[in-house]
């Protein structure tokens, strides 16, 4: 059942059970960041390092095998930029 | 209602005596209650166990302070424990002893009808150990046969001691035979 953020007491399941597995995907953490990763696909070797080390799994693989950051979830930690063996990820200011 | 207090030492089986008696009574369709004094005593320490017997459901659950019958499983307790305490004047004292009634009557507070049996001797001869719980039930029934049916008591002795049933029942019967009721 679709749970509300501010339910009435009658709308809670017994014991506040949550019966929508993994529904935190509806909660966007993308607005936490001040810096965002930008991938230079010219240099990218499609190794997946950014994807494996992202605590948010914000990187999504596209049909060409590239991994692209999903800014809805990326918190801007910058691990990908540090770990990328091809040095193809740059952290840029969010507002730019 | 008949209230019985068993005096023994931890590990000697006073609780077992109280229980077997109660089970025999319950089996008959009557009411009984058996319980230990809820102490923290260890093996060897003087202990108490109680049985209440009645034709009506039993609602009282406190210890027995004024028993109709006391049963003393170990002769050494006579020296150290006031076993006659609270015993009704017309009560019954079933005592494991090799002494005569006169000696027992000398104990302070001694009263009631005495049922005397050398239970330790019987236990040693029949069971090889000085455990007198079952033996004393024989003496108790000699003193007050209407308490419970012999065969039902024997049934629960056999249930409790499946491997020693024959010897235990023999000792129980022997105590019934050998116990002396002294006005």
């Amino acid at each position, binding site marked *: 059942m679709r749970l509300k953020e501010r339910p009435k007491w009658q709308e809670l399941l017994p014991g506040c059970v949550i019966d929508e597995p*993994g529904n935190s995907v509806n909660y966007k953490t993308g607005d936490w960041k001040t810096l965002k990763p930008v991938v230079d696909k010219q240099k990218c070797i499609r190794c997946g390092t950014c994807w494996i080390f992202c605590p948010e799994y914000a990187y999504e693989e596209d049909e060409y095998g590239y991994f692209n950051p999903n800014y809805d979830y990326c918190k801007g930690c910058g691990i990908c930029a540090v770990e990328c063996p091809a040095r193809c990820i740059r952290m840029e200011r969010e507002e730019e | 209602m008949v209230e019985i207090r068993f005096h023994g030492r931890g590990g000697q089986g006073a609780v077992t005596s109280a229980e077997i008696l109660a089970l025999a009574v319950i089996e008959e369709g009557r009411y009984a209650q058996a319980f230990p004094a*809820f102490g923290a005593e260890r093996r060897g320490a003087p202990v108490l166990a109680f049985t209440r017997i009645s034709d009506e459901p039993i609602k009282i659950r406190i210890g027995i302070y004024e028993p109709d019958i006391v049963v003393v499983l170990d002769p050494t307790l006579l020296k150290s424990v006031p076993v006659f305490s609270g015993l009704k004047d017309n009560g019954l004292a079933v005592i494991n002893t090799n002494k005569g009634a006169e000696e027992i009557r000398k104990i302070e507070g001694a009263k009631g009808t005495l049922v005397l049996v050398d239970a330790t001797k019987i236990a040693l001869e029949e069971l090889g150990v000085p455990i007198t719980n079952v033996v004393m039930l024989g003496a108790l029934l000699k003193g007050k046969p209407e308490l419970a049916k012999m065969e039902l008591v024997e049934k629960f002795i056999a249930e409790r001691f499946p491997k020693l049933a024959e010897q235990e029942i023999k000792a129980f019967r022997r105590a019934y035979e050998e116990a002396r009721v002294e006005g």
Partner: protein
Amino acid sequence: MKRVGIEVSIAIAEAAALAEVEVVSAYPITPQTHIVEHLAELVANGELNAEFITVESEHTAMSAALGASLAGARAFTSTSSQGLALMNEIVYITSSMRAPVVMALANRSLSAPISIWNDHSDVMNERDTGWISIFANNGQEAYDLTFMAFKIGEHPNVLLPVMINFDGFILTHVIEPVWMFDKEEVKDFLPPYEHPYKLDVDRPTSHGPVGLPDIYTEAKKQQEEAIRNSRKIIDAVWDEFAERFGRRYRAVEEYYADDAEIVLLTQGSVTEAAQVVVDEMRKRGKKWGVVELRLWRPFPFEDLKKVLCNNNIKCVVVLDRAISFGGQLGIVMSEVRSALYHEKNKPMVVGVTAGLGGRDIRFDEYVKMYEIGEKCLKEEKEPDKVIIVGLRE
């Protein structure tokens, strides 16, 4: 049904076995031990198809029971006193997470000084943990109520844990006659346990989330409604039991309350002892009665008012077997008094405390409790403090 002489602890264990409990997690503590020892024996002999977890503390006993219950197994535990106090944290969580664990509570006093003997300090310490809490007076009731506890707690409209209280030693260690069922007789009485949101890999659910201030109030209100509504199921289960097996249980039990002037309000095994006193004293012209508060939570407000505000009863002497230090002393007394507060024809409420830490309450002490009531009536003064009966001073 078969009438057998049995130690009450063993009968309680047999009641759990009759309910085919699936997970038993328990830690030894006097005077609860015989209950779980017997269950361990049944499991060891293959007579009960269950997992017996020999946990390393009562805290874990309740935690494991909670886990098992939410994983879809019928879970049982048993404890006393310090064990219950140690579990306290998880006792509260178990009801909040709606796990219908059944706990047999052999009531015992709390330290210090250490006392292994009976009173109601342990259960009163857990009064507000959200469990359904029921008192048994004798072996038969302990057996019946333990068995029925599963049906009550597991009902889909309830899903709450149930604790059955019976006096430690005074009941647990007594051999007495108990009518016991065989499995066939009760076969369709207790349906199989199904938790609607159990931990199921095919239907994942999350249990025990963080409740931000936006949620917590609603969560607690829901829990409160659940235990309040459980009353309907409790009555229905007890009614069905009475119809099928002939033994009737009520939230408030009365004994000569209809024409009594003074009643003693009791919980647990002292109830029957007080009845003996009433029987005897009625012969001597005393219009006394006994009222037992069998159902402790949910508190049976309406039943109690109906019984106590019958225009005959002028005084109810509430016998507490625990102390609320620095408060009104009498925990049950305070609750009874506040339950009657708005009634016009309410009797005077007098509090007495006795039988702490295993001290026997003797016949003359029960008489004294009624006499305290008589005295208060005569003086027309409701005392604001509980009187301890049987105290050396």
